[in-house]
């Protein structure tokens, strides 16, 4: 029988302690135990990237991480991007460039793009497309998203 375990972790810079079921995924824990519903369940099998979060500096799909695994980890979700109500240049660029329609994929794209720009502040178009290949958008096509990341990168380097 799976039982409940207490998880201590840092989410978006804040120490958090919460109870999860051993069978919960990190995505389920974020959405249902902690109420951070920014990370989306798209496919729930690692294909779509809508649940992407940054865990100890690397991009992961939270649907493919067990909640019990994140003991002591440092996690950034889409809610952790903006600080004090101010959008980041990346988020502004997604709005300015209309890089979304329905918005379901957007949290994943934002988190994945942040991970890219943290790693490489000046990516080529090819590198952006390659990095974001694991994020699926079924509305816009990808060109506006790529442009938004390019614009954000330019602005962040300025």
């Amino acid at each position, binding site marked *: *029988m*799976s*039982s409940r*375990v207490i998880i201590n972790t840092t989410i978006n810079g804040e120490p958090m302690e919460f109870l999860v079921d*051993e*069978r*919960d*995924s990190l995505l389920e824990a974020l959405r249902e135990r902690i109420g951070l519903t920014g990370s989306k369940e798209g496919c*729930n*099998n*690692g*294909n779509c*990237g809508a649940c*992407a979060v940054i*865990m100890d500096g*690397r*991009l*992961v*799909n939270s*649907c*493919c*991480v*067990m909640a*019990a*695994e994140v*003991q002591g980890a440092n996690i950034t979700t889409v809610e952790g991007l903006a600080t004090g109500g101010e959008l980041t240049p990346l988020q502004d660029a997604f709005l300015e460039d209309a890089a979304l329609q329905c918005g379901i994929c957007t949290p994943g794209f934002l988190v*994945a793009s942040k*991970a*890219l720009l943290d790693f490489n502040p000046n990516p080529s178009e090819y590198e952006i497309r*390659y*990095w*974001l*290949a*694991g*994020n699926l958008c079924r509305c816009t096509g990808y060109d506006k998203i790529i442009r938004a990341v390019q614009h954000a990168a330019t602005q962040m380097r300025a």
Partner: protein
Amino acid sequence: MQDVTYRRPATVQEASQLLKDNGPTARVLAGGTDIIVMARERRRDTSMFVDVKAIPELNQLSFSASEGLTVGAAVPCYRIYRDETVSRLYPCLVDSTSLIGGTAIQGRASLGGNLCNSGPAGDSIPSMIVLEGEAHIFGPNGWRTVKVEDFCTAPGRNVLDAGELLVSIKFPAPRPGSGARFLRFIPRNEMDIAVVNSATNLTLDGNTVTHARIAIGAVAPRPLFVPAAGEALVGRPLTDETTAAAATASRDAATPIDDMRGSVRQRKHLSYVLTERTIRDAARRARGEIVSHV
């Protein structure tokens, strides 16, 4: 999700004991990109996840000229392709690890998981075969080693017995004058399962091939080491004719099935083409040229 418990052993002994005591539904959890999904979708009965990422040996990534490269079974792809030594000495592993899934999969997925999953199309397995990878296994009877080409036995099946776990994969230091290359054919640029994949590792003395290993995947019940393909090259100059002979040996060894990804005819053809291309690129790397992984 099934009713699973979660354990995080700190030693290989403890992990082996958990696997043995809890039977075949106790599953090793490394990156989880396959097993979590399979457990959720009930494609694998799972009662326990044995998370092996707290075990130091499974996180090891180290190289020495005498010992070669040791890749802990849980080391995720991104650590492998961002490693400077691996990039310089084992670019073939970068070829594989940088095209398995997308960035978020590469943040978790491991060579060990790919091997233990034992899918016929596993994109790291041909590379590990041609690089003479050796699987180091710990179990109730202690340690044993199995060559990567002998590890998988059928789709989803391998040599691991009850209570055994894959701890690391070791690769000898590259031979002087050697180069290796992995390629995959998919109908799009990224994020798909191989129709066919192939790897070649060859050593050149001038233009004479002194050592060659060739493997192909997604064309048989398990990733296939093709000794005849390497033998078609060894002791001979690398020419269009000898390359064609090796590629023909790969095509002859392939016993693919028809499915939604490709037909038998296409896969036989691709076995030839990818073998030919990996030989050409491996030779370029053997001569010191940079062949980008993409």
